[in-house]
């Protein structure tokens, strides 16, 4: 087995929770935004598009810093969230979830977007003529057809969330057991002369988990695609 100090295991467990939750929570939003971007023709579409991609373009530290400015405990929104919902993000694992979600958001959205563009409009038309409302068409035709794309988006989001460092450490810092994800832990151990063994252990674990998820998802997605193509 890999020999890790307890905080290494804590970090792994936290990373899994953070990446899992961020994927789960952001997926519906990403789906909605992807639909808006792929199908919508509205004022502000360009702005939404830019906003979604911002975390990709900015150095992660800046994104983290912007999050801190916007949602910190002394920032207006942060105060509002805390007073209204009792939700504190900065320096909490919840904030790590948010940071991971924000950072992986453009990747997830793009994967779903591309899948949406590949859906044959003829099929959605056919569903409409069969009396299906746009919502039903979406749920019963569009969604199943983009399922592989959604899955791909979720997985790339998860992988990105597992690897996210700059925004996370800036927004929620690096508190062992609370906000110290695997990348933060790796950063910490890299500061210690002789910390390499732990670093490589963590790297191996992180890579194992993320690639495992990736391959699993690809398998799944192939199976879904094969079902759709009628090969199974």
């Amino acid at each position, binding site marked *: 087995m890999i020999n890790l100090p307890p905080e290494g295991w804590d970090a792994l467990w936290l990373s899994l929770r953070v990446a899992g939750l961020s994927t789960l929570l952001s997926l519906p939003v990403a789906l909605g935004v992807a639909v808006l971007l792929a199908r919508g023709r509205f004022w502000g579409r360009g702005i939404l598009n830019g906003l979604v991609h911002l975390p990709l373009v900015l150095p992660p*530290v800046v994104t983290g810093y912007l999050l801190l400015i916007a949602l910190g405990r002394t920032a207006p929104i942060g105060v509002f969230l805390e007073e209204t919902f009792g939700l504190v993000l900065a320096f909490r694992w919840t904030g790590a979830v948010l940071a991971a979600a924000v950072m992986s958001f453009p990747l997830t959205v793009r994967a779903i977007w591309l899948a949406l563009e590949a859906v044959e409009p003829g099929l959605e038309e056919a569903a409409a003529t069969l009396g299906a409302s746009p919502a039903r068409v979406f749920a019963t035709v569009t969604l199943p057809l983009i399922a592989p794309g959604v899955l791909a988006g979720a997985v790339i989001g998860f992988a990105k969330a597992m690897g996210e460092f700059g925004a996370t*450490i*800036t927004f929620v*810092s690096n508190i*062992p057991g609370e906000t*110290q994800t695997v990348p933060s832990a790796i950063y910490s151990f*890299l*500061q210690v*002369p*002789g910390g390499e063994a732990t670093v490589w252990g963590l790297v191996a674990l992180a890579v194992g988990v993320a690639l495992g998820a990736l391959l699993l998802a690809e398998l799944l997605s192939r199976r879904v695609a094969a079902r759709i193509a009628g090969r199974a």
Partner: protein
Amino acid sequence: EPVRVFAAASLKTALDAAAAEWAGGTVSLSYAGSGAVARQVAAGAPADIVVLAHADWMKWLDAQGVLGTDPVIFAGNTLAVIGPVGDAELALTPQDIAARLGRDGRLAMGDLRAVPAGIYGQEALVALGLWNGVAGRIAQADNVRNAMAFVARGEAPLGIVYASDALADPRVAIVADIPSDVHAPIVYPAAVTASAGPMAQEFLSFLQSSVGQSVFRAAGLQEPPK
């Protein structure tokens, strides 16, 4: 409730050891660059104690009004020029440094603006009259450890890091000591925050106690300058 310490990442070895020694309670240590730590504490981070690697950031923090006490200096450090282990001593002259750097060798340092060791290092180079010779040759890293890694991996023939770090990596060796009077004193200021719990002051006192200080000496840090 553990005492939460937000600390400069370059102090990890020393502070981890000190926390392990402290019998007064548990300590949670969160490491990041000094600048990041300072900004986080200013933004309301749940820190009981903040420990930085540069006095300027502590001054800035103080000005934000988030500190509960005046900062105390609990340790100091010196800079050293390092090279790959086995390299000969270096004379701090433009000629010798130029020779060591060769045609396109780099002098690895912390970021000259962002990393305290880089800031001190530049100050020293200027004071020693070496700056003009190396100004275009600096490879800045985002933290001291990465600067040291450049030397350890043979990418850069020379680097400037804390003496305490230099001792800890077997792949590098100190080739020249940098006198401590050619730059602002390297000090590690610590302070209890305004929102600190009752145990915070105790841990801070422990760091200044003889037990704490011996832990720091073992980690290569020095006594705070008088």
